[in-house]
C-alpha cells in the first residue's frame, strides 16, 4: 500500500506539467504584451486618420496571440520527440507550401509573393519554415550519433537547408533566408561541424550571393536597402529614408524616451513599416535607451533559457532543436534591431513576439512550445528517458 502511494507521488512529481520553465513563459508573456502596446502606438493614429477603428491592428494581433497560445499549449503538451518522428513530413509539407505560394494560389504584396490570403488573414509559410527547418536539421543530425561531423554530413545538412532557403530567397525574402542560414549555422556549430567547414560554407554563400547580384536575381530595391546601411549618403532616397527615419526616431528618444503614445516620429507616421519590421523604433522613441535596454534584457533572458534548455535536454535531438531555435531568435533580434539603428542591412525580418504579423507571432509561439516541451521532459529515470 505505502509503496504504491509513494510511487504515485514520485510519478506525479515527474509529470511534465510540473517542470514548466516559468522564466521562459514570463519572458514570452512580457514580450507579447509589449508588442501589443507598440502595435497600438504605431497604428492608432493612421487608422484614426483613415476613419478606421484605432484598435484594428491590435485586435488582429490579439487574435493571433490567442491562436499562438493555443498552439503553444498543444505543442508543449505533446512530447517534442514526436517532432523528430514527423520531421520528414513537416519538412516536405513546408516545402510544398513554399512551392504553392508561387502558384496563383499565393498572393502578392509589395512586389513579393509570400503567402496565402484566407478569410482576411495572410498566412506566410516562410515564417513556419524557420521552426520546421530547425526540427528537420535536429532530427537528421541527432540520428548520426557522431561527436564530430564529416564534410559529407555537413553538406547533407546544408542541402536540407538550401532547398527552403532557395524557395524563400526567390519569393523574394532575403530576411527569412538569412534566418534560415543562421539556424543551419547554429545547429551545425552545436552538432560539431569543424570551424573550417563552416568557413567554407560562408565563402560559398558569399559567392552565391555575388552570383545572384550579377544575374539580377535580387531586385533593385533589395540591393538598395542592403547597401544603404554602408553609407547613409548614398543609395536611393527611399532606402536611405527608411534607415534615417528609424535612426532619428530611436535617437530622439534619448535616455528615457518621449513617453508612451507621445513620439512625434511615431505619431506622424514617418517610419515606413513601423508596426512590422520597424517596430523597435517605437520602443526607442517612446521609451528611450532605458526601454531599449529593457527589451534587450528580455531577449537575453529568452536566449539564456533557450541555450540552457539545449544543455539540459536529455537527448541530442532536443539539444540541437533548442540550439536551432536559439539561433533563430538571436539572428532575428540582432538583424531587426541592428537595421533600425543602422548597423545591419535593411531586410524584412520581424522582431519576435513584438512585430505585427500573425504568422511570425505563431511561429515564435511554436518555438517556445517546443522549448517548453524539451524542458518539461528533460528528466531521465536511471538513464532511461521517461
Amino acid at each position, binding site marked *: 500500500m505505502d509503496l504504491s502511494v509513494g510511487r504515485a507521488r514520485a510519478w506525479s512529481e515527474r509529470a511534465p506539467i510540473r517542470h514548466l520553465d516559468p522564466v521562459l513563459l514570463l519572458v514570452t508573456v512580457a514580450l507579447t504584451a509589449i508588442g501589443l502596446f507598440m502595435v497600438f502606438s504605431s497604428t492608432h493614429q493612421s487608422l484614426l486618420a*483613415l*476613419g478606421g477603428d484605432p484598435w484594428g491592428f491590435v485586435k488582429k494581433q490579439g487574435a493571433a496571440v490567442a491562436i499562438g497560445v493555443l498552439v503553444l499549449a498543444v505543442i508543449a503538451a505533446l512530447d517534442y520527440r514526436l517532432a523528430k518522428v514527423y520531421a520528414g513530413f513537416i519538412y516536405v509539407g513546408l516545402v510544398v507550401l513554399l512551392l504553392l505560394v508561387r502558384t496563383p494560389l499565393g498572393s502578392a504584396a509589395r512586389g513579393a509573393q509570400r503567402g496565402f490570403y484566407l478569410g482576411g488573414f495572410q498566412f506566410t509559410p516562410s515564417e513556419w519554415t524557420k521552426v520546421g527547418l530547425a526540427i528537420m536539421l535536429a532530427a537528421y543530425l541527432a540520428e548520426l550519433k557522431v*561527436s564530430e561531423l564529416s564534410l559529407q554530413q555537413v553538406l547533407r545538412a546544408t542541402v536540407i537547408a538550401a532547398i527552403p532557403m532557395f524557395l524563400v530567397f526567390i519569393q523574394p525574402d532575403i530576411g527569412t533566408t538569412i534566418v534560415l542560414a543562421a539556424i543551419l549555422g*547554429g545547429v551545425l*556549430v*552545436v*552538432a*560539431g561541424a569543424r570551424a573550417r567547414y563552416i568557413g567554407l560554407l560562408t565563402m560559398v554563400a558569399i559567392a552565391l550571393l555575388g552570383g545572384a547580384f550579377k544575374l539580377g536575381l535580387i531586385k533593385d530595391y533589395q540591393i538598395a536597402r542592403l547597401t544603404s546601411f554602408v553609407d547613409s549618403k548614398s543609395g536611393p*532616397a*527611399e532606402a*536611405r*529614408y527608411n534607415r534615417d*527615419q528609424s*535612426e*532619428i*526616431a*530611436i*535617437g*530622439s*528618444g*534619448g*535616455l528615457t524616451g518621449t513617453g508612451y503614445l507621445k513620439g*512625434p*516620429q511615431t505619431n*506622424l*507616421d*514617418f517610419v*515606413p513599416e513601423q508596426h512590422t519590421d520597424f517596430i523597435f523604433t517605437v520602443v*526607442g522613441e517612446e521609451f*528611450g*535607451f532605458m526601454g*531599449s*535596454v529593457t527589451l*534587450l534584457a528580455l*531577449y*537575453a533572458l529568452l*536566449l*539564456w533559457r533557450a*541555450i540552457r534548455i*539545449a*544543455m*539540459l*535536454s*536529455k537527448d*541530442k535531438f532536443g*539539444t540541437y532543436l533548442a*540550439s536551432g531555435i*536559439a*539561433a533563430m531568435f*538571436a539572428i532575428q*533580434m*540582432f538583424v531587426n*534591431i*541592428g537595421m533600425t*539603428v*543602422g*548597423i545591419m542591412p535593411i531586410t524584412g525580418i520581424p522582431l519576435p513576439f513584438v512585430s505585427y504579423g500573425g504568422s511570425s507571432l505563431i511561429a515564435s509561439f511554436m518555438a517556445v512550445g517546443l522549448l517548453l516541451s524539451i524542458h518539461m521532459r528533460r528528466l531521465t529515470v536511471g538513464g532511461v528517458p521517461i
Partner: protein
Amino acid sequence: MTEGKTSARLKLLAWLCAFMFAALGTRLWFVQVLASADYQRQVQHNSVRTITLPAPRGRIMDMNGVLLAGNRRSLVVTVDRQHTAPNLLRELSALSKVTGVPLGDLRTRLQSNRYLPYTPVPVAFDVSKRVAFYLGENEDAFPGVDVADLQVRTYPDGTLAAHAVGSVGAINAEEIKDPRFANYDPNAIIGKTGVERTYETYLHGHLGQVRYQVNSAGHVLSSLTRKPAVAGDDVVLTIDSKVQRLAQSSLVLGQKAAHGAGFKAPAGAVVVMEPKTGQIRALASSPTFDPNVFVEGLTKKRYKQLFDDPKHAAPLFDRAVQAAYPPGSTFKPFVSLAALKEGYAGLTGSYSCPASYAFPGDTSGATFDNWNPVNSGFISLATALKISCDTVFYQFGADFYRAYRDTNQPNQVQNDLRAFGFGRTTGIDIPAENGGLIPTPHWKSTHFEPTTADPFAATWLPADNILMAIGQGSVAVTPLQLAVGYSAIANGGKVMRPHLVDRIDRPGGRVVKLLRPRVDQRLPFTRDQIDYVRTALMGVVQPGGTADTAFAGFPLSQIPVAAKTGTAQVPPFQDYSWFAAMAPAYDPKYVVVALVEQAGHGSETAAPVVRRILEGLFGLPLTNPATGSVAD
C-alpha cells in the same frame, strides 16, 4: 545532460549571442545617449507633405455605351479666399484681364456657397498654358491664386438626359457630416443630383496619395510613399440616348405648337418606360439645363436662369419625377378597375352619360359637368373610357362616397388606387422623388381646419370622391407614377420598380451590380378586368375616341395603340395637357407618358408629342406636333 563537447559548443553559441547584445547595446548607447541631441534636432526639421491624387470619376453611359458623363483634363484657376490680397477687387480685376473671365463672374463664383470657406474656389476653367505660366511667374501679384491641372466632369451632350444623369459640385458643409462621405476629401467633387448623386459611392473612386519628405524650408527632399488612385465605377443607364433625344425634341416641338395655339406651355415632362422590366428608356423634363455649367462655374446670367427667374420656369426641377399634378382623365382607367373590383361597374353593364350630374340629396344645387355638354345616353364602360365621359365616373365617385359613408370600408377607392403605386414614391433610383397624393378622409381632417366661411373644409364630402374619380380635386401624381400605373395595366398586373441604371461596371470589365426587374406589388384585379380596360383604351385613338384626330393617319393596324387623354384643371392656370399610351396594345413594349403644363386638352398638345415618340420608337416617319382637336 549534454556531453562535454556539445556543452562547450553551446557556450560558443552563447558567446555569439553575447556579442550581439554588446554590439546592439553600444550602438544604442551611441544613438540614444551620445548623439541624441542631434537626432532630436532632426525631428524638428522633419516634415511630410501629402498630396492627394484625384481618382477619375466613373463614367455614365446610356444602354448602348454612348457617353453621357465623362472626364476631361482642364487647367483651372483657383482662388483661396483666405489668402487673397488686401485689395481683393484690384487683384480680381487683374485676374479678370489675364483669364478673360468678366470681373462680375469672378465675384459671383467667389461668393458661391457651394464651397467650404477654406477650400480653393475654381473661378476660371480651361485657361491656356500661357495663362497658367503667367500666373505662376507672377505669384506675388496674385496671392491665393493657383492653377491646377484637374480632371473635371464633362457632359458631352450637355442637356441630353440632364435631369436623369444629374450634376456634380463641391461637397458642402452639411454633406461632409454625412457618414456616407466620411472618408471624403474636404475638396471632393460629389454628385449633387440625379444618377450622379444616387450612385455617388460607385462613381467616386478612391483618392491616391503621394507623401513627400520636405525640409523646414519646404523643399522636397524625396518622395516617400505612393498610393495610386482607384478610378470610380462606370454606370450604365437604361436610358437609350436616341429615344431620349426623340423625347426631348418631341416635347419641345409640342410646346412650340402649343405656343402657336395661344398656350403658355412653359414646361413639360415625358417618361418612356418598358412595362415588363421597369427600365426607363427616356426621362425628359422641359425646360432643361446643361450640367456643364456647374463644372465651369456659374455666370450671373446663368445663375439667374437656373435659380431665380420665373420666366425660365426652374429648369433644374425634374418635372417627370419631382412634380405632382392632378392627372385628370388619365386617371380613369385606374378608377375603372377600382369600380369593377368593388362591383360598381361591370364588363357588360351600361351607364348613363348625361351632360351634368348632381349628387342625389344634395340640396345646394351644385352640379358636376361633363367636359362635353351633351347627353350621350347609356354607354358601356369601354365607351366611357373612349369618349372620356366624366359623368359616368362621377357616379362611380358617388358610389365610393357611399361606401365611405355607409359601410366600414372608408378608403375603398384609395386602397385600390394605391395598389398602382399612387400616393407613394416609386423608388426610382434618383433622389428627391415626389410621392404625389391620394387624399383620404383622414388626410383631409388633418390638413384643413373648418372656418366660418367654409365649415366643411376638413370634412370628407361627396365632391371629394366625385372629383377623385376624374383625377381632380386633391389627387396628385407624377408623370413617372402614371407611367408605372399604365405599365401595370400593360403587363397584366405587375407594379414594376422603375429604374434608370442597368448595371455598374468596374474599370476593367467586372460587373459590380446588376439591377434586375423588380415587382413591387401586384394589382388586386382579375386578368379579365385588366385586359378589358387595356382593350377599351385602344378605342381612344380610333375614330370617335378623344385622341382620334391626334392619331389620324397613324398605322394602327401595324402598331395598335391603347391610350388615354387627360386635361387637368389647375386654376388659375390654363389646363394641363396629359397623354398616356401603351404600344403595341396587345403586348405593350413601351409605355409613354407626356405632360405639358398650361397647354390645353390632352388631345391638343400631349397626344401629338406621344404620337411622335411612338413613331420614332417603331421606326415610322415622324409627324411633327400641330395642335390636335380639342377633346379631353
